């Protein structure tokens, strides 16, 4: 492995995070990761069958990052979800059928065929769809947080971005801006060791997490393959954010286990690097953890359940129509401005908080 991953407890055992994650929460985290993996696997076969136009990107092996992070966000929080982060959409409540329809460019997809594959965000679930230009969404998330602060609301924004994206100016403008204004925004750097074919050594001379302090915000490197560690890091960052403590930079160390997109055979990645990370598959990890509980979770049943959901969603998506060409010019301009709606926030902690 090119970089060292700070080992978390999860790597060597099955710790509990008392008070924060119930058994049901921990199962839910696994479910979100499984959903992501199975939806993406299905999408990949649909792609191979020629049913997904354009290209196809996935986040195989990185499921813990988006599942854990999104799980820590409240319904009224806002997210910009990136191209390796399907689990965050799942956590926010986007139905698998709409995701698969999205990949296939159907009228029922999240963007109704207007944008492709992972370029979506469900506005009714508090998410802004990413643009290709990386990492533009860091500024959008910063701006959402700015509005929360201006209005004195205890809410936070979160965005993901990759190791390669740290080289671009918008990365800097966002971190600096958020630090100067002490905004409630959480920046999740998803370090999967490569930007397309380019290794991190060509993107930065020093790990970018080192910059957090120099911008004036806490920074933490987390085992991005441990969904509970991700959850916990974001939970703490969010708590700080909504309490007025400003932004946080979290680096999730993980590995892109597939090519950049479907066409990429990844010849540039050393086999040993892949092999080492394969040992640490985030879904395996969480499954082992749940199986070892005093009252073990039936992960096989869970898997079957998710698979059935995805199968059903595939049917639904395949049955959905393509968009009507007559509508191709509609909607360039808005007739009215409806702000983002709230997302699903399944973490039991929110219910407990609400009950207090």
């Amino acid at each position, binding site marked *: 492995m090119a970089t060292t991953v700070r080992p978390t407890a999860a790597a060597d055992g099955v710790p509990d995070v008392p008070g924060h994650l119930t058994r049901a929460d921990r199962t839910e985290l696994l479910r979100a990761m499984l959903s992501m993996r199975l939806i993406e696997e299905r999408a990949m076969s649909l792609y191979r069958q020629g049913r997904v136009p354009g290209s196809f990107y996935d986040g195989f092996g990185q499921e813990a990052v988006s599942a854990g992070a999104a799980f820590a966000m409240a319904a009224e929080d806002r997210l910009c979800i990136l191209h390796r982060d399907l689990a965050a959409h799942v956590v926010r409540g986007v139905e698998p059928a709409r995701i698969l329809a999205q990949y296939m460019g159907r009228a029922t997809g999240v*963007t109704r065929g207007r944008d492709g594959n992972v370029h979506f965000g469900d*506005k009714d679930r508090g998410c*802004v*769809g990413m643009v290709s230009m990386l990492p*533009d969404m*860091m500024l959008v998330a910063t*701006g959402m947080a700015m509005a929360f602060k201006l209005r004195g609301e205890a809410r936070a924004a979160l965005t993901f971005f990759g190791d390669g994206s740290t080289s671009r100016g918008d990365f800097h403008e966002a971190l600096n801006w958020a630090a100067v204004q002490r905004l409630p925004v959480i920046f999740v750097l998803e370090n999967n060791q490569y930007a397309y074919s380019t290794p991190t050594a060509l993107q930065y001379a020093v790990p970018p997490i080192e910059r957090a302090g120099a911008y004036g915000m806490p920074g933490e490197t987390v085992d991005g393959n441990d969904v509970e560690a991700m959850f916990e890091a974001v939970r703490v960052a969010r708590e700080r954010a909504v309490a007025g403590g400003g932004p946080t930079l979290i680096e999730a160390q993980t590995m892109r286990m597939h090519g950049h997109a479907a066409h990429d055979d990844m010849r540039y990645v050393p086999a040993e690097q892949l092999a080492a990370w394969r040992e640490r598959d985030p879904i395996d990890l969480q499954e082992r953890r749940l199986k070892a509980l005093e009252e073990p979770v039936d992960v096989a049943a869970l898997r079957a359940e998710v698979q059935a959901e995805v199968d059903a969603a595939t049917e639904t998506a395949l049955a959905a129509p393509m968009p009507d060409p007559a509508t191709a010019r509609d909607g360039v*301009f808005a007739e009215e401005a409806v702000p983002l709606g709230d997302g699903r926030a399944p973490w039991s902690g929110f219910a407990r908080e609400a009950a207090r």
Partner: protein
Amino acid sequence: MSGTTQTPATTGRAGGGAERATRRTMTYLQAISDGLREEMRADERVFVMGEDVGVFGGAFKVTDGFVDEFGTDRVMDTPLAESGIVGTAVGAAVVGMRPVCEMQFADFIACGFDQLVNVAGKMHYRQGLAVPITVRLPSGGGFSGGPFHSQNPEAWFMHAPGLKVVAPSTPEDAKGMLIKGIRDPNPVVYLEHKHLYRRVKGEVPTGTYETDFSARIAREGDDLVVIAYGAMVHTALEATAPEALDGASVEVLDLRSLVPLDEEAILASVRKCSKVVVLDEANATCAAGAQVASLIAERAFEDLDGPIVRVATPDVPIPFSPPLEQAVLPGVERVKEACRDLLAY
């Protein structure tokens, strides 16, 4: 008061119909300032952000005194970061705010280009999510601002789907179109021509009102029409005053809005006059004027009694030294000559 309608703000206090009769004389600059102030009073979602807009009141003093009334939160001095300004404004807008961004000079929007064109402009089409931001661009030359303080970048944004682009020429329109722009659910690129700031005065209604994003006949005529916007409207009016052109009756059409472009008004003027000069301060190639000319050549070909003559800045950076700058910017003489030649055609 063509195109001006007194409308209540969507939330908060609004200038009602009762205030309609009241008018005050102010400069173009004061009118912009007044419009912004009134709309900030009327709608608490509106805030202004930019470099030095706070305590200093902005490089051109549009927000002079605003901090005292609205506080530094709603009159926000930002870091020196144009991509940041546009990008964070988009973020604030999608969660319910109505940000008004000031570029210190229009030229600097090049540094926020991507956020404006790719994030703001395409959002609604892609995601069905409205981005109600207004980006104020102090634009234009004529005062030795040199290559980086004189640009007219509107055509870039006309060529970027999803952005509205407006360029008022009078104080009344400047105020009404700014308010209209702030209330518009879409990203609006608002060009305010620096050379008009203190040179142009006019009567302006008090309170809040909206001016349509449509063209306006600045002077009626039927021998020839000069189509212009922004500062060039004044150049056109001066160049085509009846005494200037041996009594020819020249219409001046002030486009006011470039996206949407008031195609019907353009075609109506062409049908009436049959001769057209398209006047543009921007660099000629692919300018707004090129679009207007191409529209006419396609849709009003049969109404034309002569070539569609364009007057614009040649494709050079705007030079600093006065004799050079005057040689490239379209002036009264060049417009007069173009009209004279075409009238004689």
